[in-house]
């Protein structure tokens, strides 16, 4: 994906196979803070999952249980931590080393 395609490889015109953005790293957008999960407090309400703009809450499709974060995409916006209903929060924004 990092190699630029030449014109002959663009057969169909401006058409792409679906989902290629999964190869694009937006995790490096984070500015020093990342979400951290505290599973022992988590009630698996999935509010974080339904509100994450970057599809970065990982869930097990079979059990519908949250399993953590996809740090490749997570931009560190903090919506998940803000919306988490438990007291104390099951998701906290914490400093991360770059």
């Amino acid at each position: 994906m990092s190699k630029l395609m030449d014109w002959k490889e663009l057969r169909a015109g401006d058409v792409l196979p679906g989902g290629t953005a999964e190869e694009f790293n937006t995790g490096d957008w984070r500015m020093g803070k990342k979400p951290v999960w505290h599973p022992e407090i988590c009630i698996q309400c999935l509010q974080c999952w339904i509100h994450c703009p970057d599809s970065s809450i990982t869930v097990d499709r079979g059990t519908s249980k949250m399993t953590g974060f996809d740090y490749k995409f997570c931009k560190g916006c903090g919506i998940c931590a803000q919306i988490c209903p438990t007291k104390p929060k099951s998701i906290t924004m914490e400093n991360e080393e770059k």
Partner: protein
Amino acid sequence: MANLKEMAKQEERLTGGHRACAGCGIPIIVRQVMHAIKDPVVVGCATGCLEVVSTIFPYTAWKVPFIHNAFENAAATVSGIESAYNAMKRKGKITKDIRFVAFGGDGGTYDIGFQSLSGAMERGHDMLYICYNNEAYMNTGVQRSGATPLGANTTTAPAGKVKQGKEQTRKDLTACMVAHNIPYVAQAAVGNWVDLTRKIEKAMSIRGPKYIGVLQPCQLGWGYPMENTVELGKVAIETCIWPLYEVENGVYKLTYKPKEKKPVVEWLKMQSRFRHLFKPGNEKILERIQANVDRDWNELLKKSEGGGAH
């Protein structure tokens, strides 16, 4: 009714790796919509934030068929796709049930896209048009649109020494859609996922043209800390500045009534685009905003009482 555990079983139809701002409300809406739809779906999208951030060649965050044509023609483009589908179905070349959704920002819907939307709705295509309304032309740098509310600071109607932001109230596009006599029209918002997903399911159960306008907080254009996007949506709903309702075959129904209607300044003070309204001398504008919200809310209450018709 939509159930998170059920929805979570479905693969992401909008993946990560798109370039929306951190904390952007648009992908929140798109993900909620996509998870509330079970059928195969084809998406058409107008030029704007959503299209630009989610499809930068050779990357696309869409795992459903997706087309971007131009700025003002999402509705026309999707009506063409839906017509093609009908043709194929009639000829027996396709048997699958496929649904059609068009996304447009308020720019591409209220203003430049108005004609194409109106035509598509009048022609009765079986499609759902969703307007993600961040109340300005955000992708090009926060210019005012027909959806921009009174007093908001935008880059083409800024607050300065002699002007105080937008001088006109916004267009009520939802009412325009109701006037098209289509089977389903609704307003929803980021901040009430239950309401939005229920409306999507409702819309999908109806055949014919449908429109849903979704209020979408924009951290860059409205000026607030990025983690507050959902919180801001909730405040909007509680102040009734963007009421949640639906109109099914002309019958109004309020889908959310706050226990205690909050004063609109609670909403305005959270965003820097309204900061200038709190300067001495601008009290009249704040009063006017509250008066308009109250008037519109009361009218809506009347229309929805006992299932009032429009």
